[in-house]
């Protein structure tokens, strides 16, 4: 974070009443309306918002790159005193990648797959400063070292696919910095990365402005990341800035109902599923061509005042605090102190008998290595240990979360559980029967129906060719819940009621539904066979923040009503902390730590859990975190470390023993287990990673 003197001097970038539209066959679709921003030298401003709010469009407009059908229809962009509209193509080219540089969401896609990284980096100074290739190579190498990439020579010679995602993003950042830009645009630079890798990139971005004095525009959907990287923030909703101001103001004294609603819907450490549940924002994001008259947030707002809120365009006005601006006609009238959103407080219910018991379950895949080296050494058949010695249990009505980054084996585990794969070894007792070796086609309808899944991607979970009713009806029939057509239809309608969707949705096809609605149908389908256990694989991670809370809520309500066990697979510790009773932390196919939520979030920690907790961005200015950054990349599952899987990145590695021996499982208490070589007394000395309520640094 920089210490940019906001308000001082001349702004580097000014957007004045910027309006951007896309022109489609259906007519003009306004993407961004009335966008104004001043960015001062050395300052970092965040633009935060959900999908379709226009935040990326702003960045592309600043670069003057909007495709054939997009265009600025009003207002102006002034950069460094020059109106961008007046630039000649050659001046624009000089500016792009020169004074303004950009970092993209998908680093792999942003790099040319058939040119070496060195060549791609060297182009920047060669075309902007006309320097020789040797000099450009030296500059590129230096810059790779500056972004903390080990072995720059090797990276220079490598093709993009030969390095990891985190390293690719460092390359993209170094490419952007090579021309010493005055302004750096970052468009969701860490969204495609794992959370521990993300933490490293965020750290690097924080260092940039201090090191190079670069101004930054940071675009993200994640409030926590904005807090960690920016001085000020603009909150966008449906094409408009609804609120802007310094981080502290917007995070603690927000005035717009949408901003307030957003913070109420994010699982902050202060939230609790029983006593302090999340408050969902009702409804859906409006589509660009279906925006209401007046305030775009009106239809979803608790303070909507017909006649005023939908009278006409609403101007953005100064708020109560310095540099705060709000686009709401009622912001002064709303009494937030006495506002009590109606939420159901759920009483605690004790967990029932054991439903699932996994005992030393292993799942190995056989991979044939066809390289010459492998053939010569006779090791052409290798085993990928996707799951190694998985042991844990789950009780009736309990929520158990499996947490881990990509490649940790959580999806493989779900496959074994549902019978799409069978275990290599070990036992999985489900409702008293060992199902570890029973493939899906040998399971009884009852077994199938009582163990169902909710999937991650809303666009993928429903078959686009069939109606909602047909898809849910098929499940009901398949599991033998009902057989008569009339009864099946009845049951479909009940399920739609249960997931709070209108009954006539049964005639619709998936493409007529929004992401959140599709997820609801997916949940209805999972609950159609009265399951005793539901596996939810990242059920809300692809949804917009304002919709996430509602879907999470729904899942919990159905779980309570049906006394279902919920196995919640996620990479997001914030969500997990909010809704799980117990947590299993996995890394490279093995369990590192498991215990109740309180136990996992408090010391003693497994070093990996500690790093994971530290890496999760939290959108709360009262939270302080211990800084633990992991070195290196996730090892390949094909070639995992022989000893502790976390050994290669562990900041607290003891020594040779970590490389050579599998760590022992330490029993800390009845529920709490940690697999680590570090003695318990040492682990217990750790301080809590997340501290709430302490004054900011």
């Amino acid at each position: 974070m920089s210490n940019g003197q906001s308000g001082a001097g001349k702004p580097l970038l000014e957007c004045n009443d910027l309006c951007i539209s896309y022109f489609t066959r259906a007519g003009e679709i306004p993407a961004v309306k009335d966008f104004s921003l001043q960015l001062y030298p050395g300052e970092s401003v965040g633009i935060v918002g959900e999908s379709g709010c226009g935040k990326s469009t702003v960045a592309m407009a600043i670069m003057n790159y909007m495709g054939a059908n997009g265009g600025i229809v009003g207002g102006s962009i002034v950069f460094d005193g020059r109106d961008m509209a007046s630039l000649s193509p050659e001046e624009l080219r000089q500016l792009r990648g020169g004074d303004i540089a950009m970092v993209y969401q998908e680093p792999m896609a942003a790099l040319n797959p058939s040119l070496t990284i060195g060549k791609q980096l060297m182009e920047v100074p060669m075309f902007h400063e006309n320097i020789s290739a040797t000099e450009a190579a030296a500059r590129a190498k230096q810059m790779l070292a500056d972004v903390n990439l080990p072995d720059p020579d090797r990276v220079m010679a490598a093709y993009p696919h030969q390095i990891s995602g985190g390293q690719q993003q460092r390359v993209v950042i170094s490419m952007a910095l090579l021309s010493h830009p005055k302004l750096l645009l970052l468009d969701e630079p860490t969204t495609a990365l794992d959370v521990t890798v993300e933490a490293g990139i965020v750290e690097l971005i924080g260092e940039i402005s201090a090191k190079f004095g670069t101004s930054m525009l940071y675009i993200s959907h994640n409030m926590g990341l904005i807090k960690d990287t920016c001085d000020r923030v603009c909150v966008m909703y449906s094409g408009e800035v609804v609120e802007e101001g310094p981080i502290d103001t917007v995070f603690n004294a927000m005035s717009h109902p949408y901003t307030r609603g957003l913070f109420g819907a994010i699982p902050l450490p202060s939230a609790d599923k029983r006593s302090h549940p999340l408050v969902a924002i009702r409804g859906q994001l409006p589509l660009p061509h279906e925006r209401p008259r007046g305030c775009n947030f009106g239809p979803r707002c608790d303070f909507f005042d017909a006649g005023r809120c939908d009278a006409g365009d609403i101007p953005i006005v100064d708020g109560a605090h310095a540099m705060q601006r709000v686009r709401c006609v009622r912001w002064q009238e709303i009494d937030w102190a006495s506002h009590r959103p109606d939420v159901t407080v759920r009483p605690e219910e004790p967990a029932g008998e054991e439903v699932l018991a996994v005992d030393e379950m292993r799942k190995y895949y056989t991979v044939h290595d066809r390289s010459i080296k492998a053939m010569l050494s006779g090791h052409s058949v290798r085993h990928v240990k996707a799951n190694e010695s998985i042991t844990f249990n789950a009780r009736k009505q309990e929520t158990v979360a499996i947490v881990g980054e990509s490649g940790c084996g959580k999806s493989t585990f779900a496959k074994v559980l549902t019978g799409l794969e069978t275990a290599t070894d070990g036992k999985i007792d489900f409702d008293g029967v060992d199902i570890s070796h029973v493939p899906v086609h040998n399971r009884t309808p009852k077994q199938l129906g009582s163990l169902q899944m909710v999937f991650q991607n809303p666009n993928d979970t429903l078959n686009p060719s069939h109606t909602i009713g047909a898809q849910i009806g098929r499940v009901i029939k398949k599991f033998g819940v009902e057989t008569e057509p009339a009864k099946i239809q009845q049951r479909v309608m009940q399920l739609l009621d249960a997931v709070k969707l209108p009954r006539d949705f049964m005639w619709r096809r998936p493409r007529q539904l929004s992401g959140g609605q599709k997820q609801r149908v997916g949940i209805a389908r999972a609950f159609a066979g009265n399951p005793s256990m539901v596996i939810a694989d990242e059920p809300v991670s692809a949804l917009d923040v304002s919709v996430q809370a509602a879907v999470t809520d729904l899942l919990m309500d159905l779980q309570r009503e049906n006394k279902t066990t919920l196995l919640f697979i996620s990479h997001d510790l914030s969500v997990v902390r909010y809704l799980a009773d117990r947590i299993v932390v996995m890394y490279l196919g093995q369990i590192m730590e498991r215990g109740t939520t309180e136990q996992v979030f408090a010391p003693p920690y497994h070093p990996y859990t500690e790093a994971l907790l530290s890496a999760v961005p939290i959108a709360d200015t009262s939270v302080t975190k211990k800084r633990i950054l992991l070195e290196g990349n996730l090892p390949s599952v094909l070639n995992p470390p022989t000893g502790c899987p976390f050994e290669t990145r562990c900041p607290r590695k003891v020594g040779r023993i970590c490389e050579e021996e599998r760590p022992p499982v330490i029993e800390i208490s009845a529920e709490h287990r940690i697999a680590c070589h570090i003695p318990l007394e040492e682990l217990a000395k750790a301080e809590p990673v997340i501290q709430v309520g302490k004054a900011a640094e």
Partner: protein
Amino acid sequence: MIVLLAKRFGGMVLTMLTVSILLFLLFETNIESVATKVLGPYSSDEQRQIWLEKEGYFRPLYIRYFEWLGNVVTGDFGESVRFKVPVGDVMWDRLANTAILGAAAMAVIIPLSLLLGVLAGMREASKLDRTISVLSIATTSVPEFASAVLLSAIFVFWLGILPGTSSMTGGFNLVELILPALVLILYDFGYVTRMTRASMAEVMTTGYIRTAILKGLPYRTVILKHALRNALIAPFTVIMLQFNWLLSGVIVVEFFFAYKGFGALLLEAALNQDIYLVEACAMVAVFVAVATQTIGDVGYTYLNPRIRFN
């Protein structure tokens, strides 16, 4: 890389072996019919039996196959019934003529369609793109025999500037090569153009082209250095596959223009039940097709660093 080459080569040999088995089974399982085709329909039953005995046709099928395969590998395809000479004597000359025709067509098709494809794909949905697209659709829609007829009508009947047949009886004649080559070009270039266009258009929408533009590179550099390198990988394979298509095309073209080439020979052999010649021609045709395809596969792998370094 070496393993990959070995695998491709192995696959090629396996395909050729399978094709040889299929052809052998198709033509030589029924030995009575073989004798009839070789000795003619008016031969007596006794003559046939004597011939079959002499040629060893009463031995088991698999022994005959391996013997036949051995001969084929060493270039001995037997004697042509129609031409009364060893098959090789007539076939290799014809193949050389076809190679000339194919080379002439390819020499135009490759540069023309790559250029048009890149121009069209560079700016998708532009006027130029639409013109090139419709042009290439239109030309691929005219079958070779139809364009042969239409071009002959124009250049031979009305304008009278080109010869209507290309038998090249008086030795090699460039003028006689024009019409057959033109027919092949017209039919084939559209397909390669459209494949190139699709590949180029796809590359132009990728993130790395955006990166290259927003990095401030001149448009020329973006196209020449970033786009073409990736966009021409797919057309390379497509071009290698065209040799297979060309072998189909030459049958029609050589038949129409009475060009003494491989395609006309194959057709003549098939229509006259000249089985040894058909077998030989089919084996050679498949060999050319499989060999070019293998080159295409290997080349694709070599051009694509994502596969090359893995």
